[in-house]
């Protein structure tokens, strides 16, 4: 099964670290920094999993999730949201929008890897 992830993150050094981490774990990683075109990028890439920052230039992560969930093909796509905002209301808002898992910064690599592997397994892709 596929192990293709699209990473939407505007912080270049986080992107580089996560990209390295996932590639070492056998993932193909496409990274993208702009929120405004993120939905199009994801829809055309058709990845197995998306990692998405909440606060992005151009469009918020939540708006991107809502747009993806409105698209029939993307309703079951596992989405891991990374954010500096960790309040309960932020989590609730993210869940309501359709985020599969929510992780607050600063996270450890182990947490990211475990979450990605779990989501992949739960989606029946492994």
């Amino acid at each position, binding site marked *: 099964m596929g192990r293709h992830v699209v990473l939407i993150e505007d912080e270049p050094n*986080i992107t580089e670290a*996560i990209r390295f981490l996932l590639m070492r774990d056998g993932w193909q990683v496409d990274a993208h920094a702009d929120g405004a075109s993120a939905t199009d990028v994801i829809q055309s890439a058709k990845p197995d999993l998306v990692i998405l920052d909440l606060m992005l230039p151009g469009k918020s992560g939540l708006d991107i999730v809502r747009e993806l969930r409105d698209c029939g093909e993307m309703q079951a796509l596992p989405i891991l949201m990374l954010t500096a905002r960790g309040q309960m209301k932020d989590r609730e808002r993210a869940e309501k929008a359709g985020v599969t898992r929510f992780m607050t910064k600063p996270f450890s690599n182990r947490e990211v890897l475990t979450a990605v592997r779990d989501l992949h397994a739960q989606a029946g892709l492994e």
Partner: protein
Amino acid sequence: MARQMLTGSRIRERRLMLGLRQSDLAQQVSISASYLNLIEHNRRKIGGKLLVTIAGVLGVEPTMLTEGAEATLLANLREAGADHDTPIAELDRVEEFAGRFPGWAEVLVRSHARIAALERNVQTLSDRVTHDPHLAASLHEVLSTAAAIRSTADILVDSEDLDSSWQQRFHRNINEDAQRLAESSRELVSFLDESGAQSDPSGLPQEEVDRFLIDNSYHFAPLESGEATVAEVIDAAPQLQNDASRQMARRLLVQYANDAGFMPLEDMLTAIQEFGIVPDRLQARFGGRIQQVLRRLAWLPEERLGQEVGLVLCDASGAVLLRKPIAGFSIPQFGASCPLWPLYQALGQPHVPLQHRLRQEGRGGAPLTSFSYAWQAGEAGFERDPQLRAAMVLIAAPADAPAAMSVGVTCRVCDIERCTARREPSILREGF
């Protein structure tokens, strides 16, 4: 008049007690020594902002000057009792309490004032933490940089066989991020320090305009007399540091000059002395539109008017565009205000003048009269949606005014129970 006469004498008495010369006090409160002399000899009325300013310089509560020390103590004790959650049975014996235990009465009053000041700090900080875009961006920057460092450091520690080019790359990234983190942490600490000192930390355009207006006491005499143009006033304002704030201030002052053009200061003061602050009568006297009269009232110098005038302007989203505070009514700096304000009722009834008696719940709330009005900004058209604006002028209501409607500041720090307009729970009811 008797009360006014005593006020002047008390100012003189307090000034002499502090060893201040009349000219020094006059200079500190920006009036002429001869005008202060008239006040001290009870030949000119004093009230509003000038009284508050003089009281501040003399280091006393304004009521100490208007009513004397004993009356101030009793009033403060009554206020402390009234603010208590459960009614105090002995409230009518406050004079006896102050007479028998003056020291304890003073302690109680000071504690009450201290609690009120702390609650105001909670309100300001809560407001800031919840809505300040600079603080949110600053925290986001710190956490994102920390995440980058942590993730990169994890890789370096966990990867014994890491290629040397990758090692160099990640070391460089950590170095860059550590510098960024140091810088953003420093900025965050500086921001919080400045917030504590209540200075202007952020340079947001709206905050710069607010500071500009406050520093000028919401009055621009050179503009009214024709001694300066709008551009000259703006160019001379050190508070306006960026293009956005200068643009906002320019729009405001152009409107100001236009309003002052057909409602000259002296004529307005004469009319108000004749029939009081009655917006529709002022409109009938000077012409123009109601919103212009409301705005003009807020720009009159309070030391000449003899009382404070508050003003809140908002757009159709409810966002506050201009705030001129008045004692007894808090206006949040950030975020949404209380939806019960008549200002927002006016938005639902454009072109209908609304008058209310109101009182803001919480410490320091005072009975006020509000005049609210909403109008369509710009030209109407079948192909253009109306752009509404609303204004609310606030003035002190007489102490014996009929019962007033209760409004809040903003839900987060509002104590009104069973309010159907509530958006979120109050932190005042959650252990604060």
